[in-house]
């Protein structure tokens, strides 16, 4: 993969222990993230899609070390994120930020908007005086399309879209290089979704940001991403440039997902691929290819052999024994 990488993730795993029994022994293990690898280049937007519970959000949080991964490597600007602690980790917080899904849960109801947005400046000592801090907060609020006088208000006085803008301003305060957007528009009305996505695109251009954009909705991701990674049960099954993935999906799971995206043209008829059954329990993921239990093209050996991601066309990676 290319040289201009900002972030590279290798074989990331996160297993949550399910405790029970007499002395809280680990009785079972949820394989939330089960060997995820990808790279993100500078200025790029990598869309990460998959059903709920497939480990997208856990992947994002592991990269930020908000959740401690079980194993794997995360390299950010050439530095090993997994081995960071103390001051190095604090410094990393200035370069990597996160925007949350639920704008109602992600803002402290007891703080004013000014205090929320200014917190990062306080923590990292980015403002020398009270006045400088306020000026910077006003500047940040204006950047995300809010008014300066919103600074003295409390989160409950704002609508969902405005709250999400506050969350974006908070993330921007430290001038990060990478922002993990954890389903930033899933909780918003469709009309507001467009506003927030446009804002994110404007900001990316203005501050040359790199995004890891997590979503469960392919139509949202298509609009903003340069490349897209599709996840299923803790693993990446396909990574390809946005256009490429939409035009010629290789993995049967990607095909099924894409066939569910509505086309805004009633005359176009498309074959709808319906997947059978539910997502298997991540405590006992299927052997071999995780997808074989629901795959329309599965063959007997799919249950035995783990497929690895391989480059079937330049830049288009797929993890399937029989496609690509």
């Amino acid at each position, binding site marked *: 993969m290319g040289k201009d990488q900002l972030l590279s993730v290798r074989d990331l795993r996160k297993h949550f222990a399910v405790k029970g029994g007499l002395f809280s022994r680990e009785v079972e293990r949820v394989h939330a993230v089960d060997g995820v690898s990808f790279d993100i280049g500078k200025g790029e937007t990598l869309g990460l899609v998959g059903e709920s519970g497939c480990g997208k959000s856990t992947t994002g949080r592991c990269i930020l070390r908000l959740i401690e991964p079980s194993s794997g490597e995360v390299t950010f600007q050439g530095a090993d994120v997994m081995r960071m602690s103390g001051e190095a980790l604090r410094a990393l917080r200035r370069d990597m*930020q996160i925007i949350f899904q639920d704008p*109602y849960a992600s*803002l*402290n109801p007891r703080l*004013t908007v000014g205090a929320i947005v200014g917190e990062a400046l306080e923590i990292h000592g980015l403002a020398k005086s009270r006045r400088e801090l306020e000026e910077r907060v006003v500047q940040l609020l204006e950047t*995300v399309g809010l008014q300066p006088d919103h600074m003295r208000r*409390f989160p409950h006085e704002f*609508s969902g879209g405005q709250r999400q803008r506050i969350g974006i301003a908070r993330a921007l305060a430290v001038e990060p290089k990478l922002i993990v957007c954890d389903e930033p528009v899933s909780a918003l*009305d469709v*009309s507001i979704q467009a506003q927030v996505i446009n804002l994110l695109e404007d900001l990316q251009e203005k501050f040359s940001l790199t995004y890891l954009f997590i979503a469960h909705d392919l139509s949202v991701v298509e609009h903003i991403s340069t490349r897209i990674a599709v996840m299923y049960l803790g693993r990446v099954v396909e990574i390809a440039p946005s256009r490429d993935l939409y035009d010629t999906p290789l993995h049967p799971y990607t095909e099924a997902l894409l066939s569910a995206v509505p086309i805004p043209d009633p005359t176009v008829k498309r074959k709808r691929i319906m997947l059978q059954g539910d997502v298997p329990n991540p405590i006992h993921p299927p052997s071999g290819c995780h997808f074989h239990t629901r795959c329309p093209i599965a063959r007997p050996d799919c249950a035995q052999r783990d497929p690895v991601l391989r480059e079937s066309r330049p830049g288009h990676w797929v993890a399937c024994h029989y496609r690509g």
Partner: protein
Amino acid sequence: MAGSTHASLSAKAPAAVPGARKGRRFSPWQEAWRRFRRHKMALFSAFALFLVVFGVLAGPFLWRVPINEIDFAAKLQGPSWAHPMGTDDLGQDLLSRLIYGGRISIAVGVAAMIVAIFVGMLVGALAGMASGGLDAALMWLTDLFLSLPQLPLLLLVIYLFREPVKGVLGVEGGAFILIVGVIGATRWMAAARLVRAQFLSLREKEFVEAARALGASRMRQVMMHILPNALGPVIVVATIDIAAAIIAESTLSFLGLGFPSDVPTWGSVLRDAKDYLDIAPHWALFPGGLIFITVLAINFIGDGLRDALDPRRVL
């Protein structure tokens, strides 16, 4: 909710904030006060409690009859102009004794609450933030204290330690510290469990995660983000703890294990009155009524605060 308001399709955010009244805005605490005011019973109770507290604080300056002036000619008298609450079997003026006693009872109630809430918050916060071994140990300790029978324990501790503490801190001071300490030490468990539960749920909230992502230290996460949001229910428990501590002090005094017998408290006046219930009922009714009104008022205030501080409640 504000989320259901219409929004324009343009990329610019709407300038006016829907839901906010022009010119007047409310912080979460002001919002709570607005809701508290709608609770008529709580508001009335707050007024009643204010009167009682004001009465016992300002009383000695307005009613200058000494608490220990013995006058056998006027013993066991009912209410009169000379003695508005009557007199006891030594002819001492009950009003001045109850004013003095109220100071002690309320001071014990507030001080014991502070001790209980402080210990409870400390234990609860440590358990809630630590999780794992320390959490389990602290909760076992809490369960242990909960399973102790409170009154026999109080009696035992006071019986054992009254003399040594008296030696160090003097008669009244020693009794005060001992009673406050003992009541506080047996009443912190509710607060500890509550704070722990609040911490466990709040520390997983996204705004705390956001603070962590910004590089906030654990201390900052607790002081800025977790504790302020956990405070509502704790305040409710604290008010109710004052009432419970006043009752506990009265019980101890009634049993003769509180303050020295010449120091009047509401409970000890009640104890002295119990032998004369048939000939001088006023002697028991006034302290009993004061305990009743104070405790009831505090409980109603606690009720009102619970409604006012619960953000899910729409009033």
